[in-house]
């Protein structure tokens, strides 16, 4: 399987793909941190059902974990970027016809799929690192300008950074697998992105606005909980278990389809 991973990593070294991925990650990290600091320092609070973004309170922002609270706040945005990139990479093999060469070269298709997942997980780790670095670089001057106390931000720095990084990384991997699964089923990046992003921005938002509907168990909400280390309504362990369940189910479905389906593209 290492050969498949190495091969996929070689194909992922596309300048445009990497610039898009890391560029959008940087953009969202800067944007969300700037908005978050402005919003929280101005005494604002999030309306219920706001799509995709959950800002901390002022007290949370000034706590040791406040340094990286932008990561959790922007996790849905990062998630949509990750979903889109994984979908583009997966569906691109079908669109270009490369899938014919790959399957002819490595007929054990599960190896190809596993190689792609592992390679994309490695790049997702890199994107998570970019997000964390940009978050730190963006939040410090923004907090200083807004008069937010940053005195506690150095406390337990390694644990805070590692925890925030791992949580965001796990959430992004689930987003990515979701993109891979939909792209494998649809063999189209556009369809996969439309379904993924549309679900988060439209379906979940509508459901959240409806009273008497348990919105805590929606995928986007669960992944926000994973990225944020848990929420008031969903414990971190529960959210993580649900996310792992989703990933497992998604990979089983994608694997079964990919291994059995005719390559006619």
């Amino acid at each position: 399987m290492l050969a498949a991973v190495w091969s996929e990593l070689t194909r992922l070294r596309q300048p445009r793909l990497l610039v898009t991925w890391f560029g959008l990650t940087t953009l969202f990290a800067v944007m969300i941190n700037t908005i978050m600091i402005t919003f929280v320092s101005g005494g604002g609070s999030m309306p219920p059902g706001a799509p995709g973004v959950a800002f901390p309170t002022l007290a949370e922002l000034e706590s040791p974990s406040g340094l990286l609270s932008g990561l959790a706040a922007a996790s849905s945005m990062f998630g949509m970027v990750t979903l889109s990139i994984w979908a583009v990479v997966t569906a691109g093999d079908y669109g270009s016809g490369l899938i014919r060469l790959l399957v002819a070269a490595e007929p054990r298709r599960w190896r190809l799929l596993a190689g792609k997942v592992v390679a994309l997980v490695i790049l997702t780790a890199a994107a998570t690192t970019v997000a964390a670095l940009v978050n730190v670089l963006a939040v410090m001057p923004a907090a200083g300008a807004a008069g937010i106390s940053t005195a506690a931000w150095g406390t337990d720095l390694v644990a805070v950074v590692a925890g925030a990084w791992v949580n965001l990384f796990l959430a992004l991997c689930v987003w990515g697998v979701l993109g891979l699964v939909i792209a494998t089923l649809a063999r189209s990046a556009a369809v996969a992105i439309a379904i993924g992003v549309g679900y988060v921005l439209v379906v979940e938002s509508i459901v959240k606005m409806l009273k008497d509907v348990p919105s805590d168990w929606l995928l986007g909400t669960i992944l926000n909980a994973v990225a944020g280390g848990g929420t008031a309504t969903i414990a971190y362990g529960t959210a993580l278990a649900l996310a792992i369940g989703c990933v497992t189910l998604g990979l089983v479905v994608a694997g079964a389809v990919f291994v059995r389906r005719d390559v006619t593209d």
Partner: protein
Amino acid sequence: MPVVTTTELTRRFGPITALDRLTVELPAAGVIGLVGPNGSGKSTLIRILLGLIRPTAGSATVLGSAISSPARYASRVGVLVESPAFIPGLSARANLVSLARLRRLPLARVDAVLAQVGLMGRDREPVKRFSLGMKQRLGIAAALLSDPELLILDEPTNGLDPAGIVEIRELLRELGREGRTVIVSSHQLSEIEAVCDHLVVIRFGELIFSGPMAEMMKRTREHIDIAAEHAADMDRLEAALLAGGWAVTAVDDVLRVAAAADRAADLNRAATAAGITLNRLIVAQDNLEEIFLEMTGRVDGELANGRAAANGKVA
């Protein structure tokens, strides 16, 4: 041992039968031409042999291994299926390196195949800047990467200029002489005639012919192409010849008469007797294209699709 065997190989796509109980053996070594009208089932056969799609019924072997286990022979087979497929944003070299890594091959093979297809020097350019012909060369390079015993090339000269076609023709001949088996699917029948040692003709998913090219060319016959001095006389000339018992077909601006060279004088006399002066009388031999068209019923690929679909077959 045959390099490929198929037994009653059948593939249906819903109501359409793309391959219909195809039984054929392809000999090892040499260049084998796989021809048939558009949609005759050539691509379906190639995809089944490569493990890309599964047959509905029947069985097949490639290099002695059943197609149900393509992993057993994949490393010994090089392929160019339909159009060459690469990542446009990556260089030619990076595309080949990714395939070499997937096949666990030494990266020195990348240099070797790039040199073999004449792309050394352009190998660091993104594939998106390549012409169709260069992409085709890169596709052949990818097929040669594993130094395979069996090469399956679908339309390898597609998009190449005349010089490129000659170059690839020489490459195919050389590969065949090296002891490899090269299966070439092509619509360029002149290319097939020029390079192939063995020929397989498929139509509507059924085998029409499989055998040495020499055996196929034995079917060639001489014919005589004639034309009247005045175009207005062509209909009268055709009628006179038909009345005289000649087998005549109108082809473009000439009448093609099925007759050997020694009947040329008789033909000229027949025209003169009808009061018509000939300004063209050319004795020629049927080529593979003529035989192919006769065997496949001179069907147009697109029209045949409709007709065959009505019969429940891909045309």
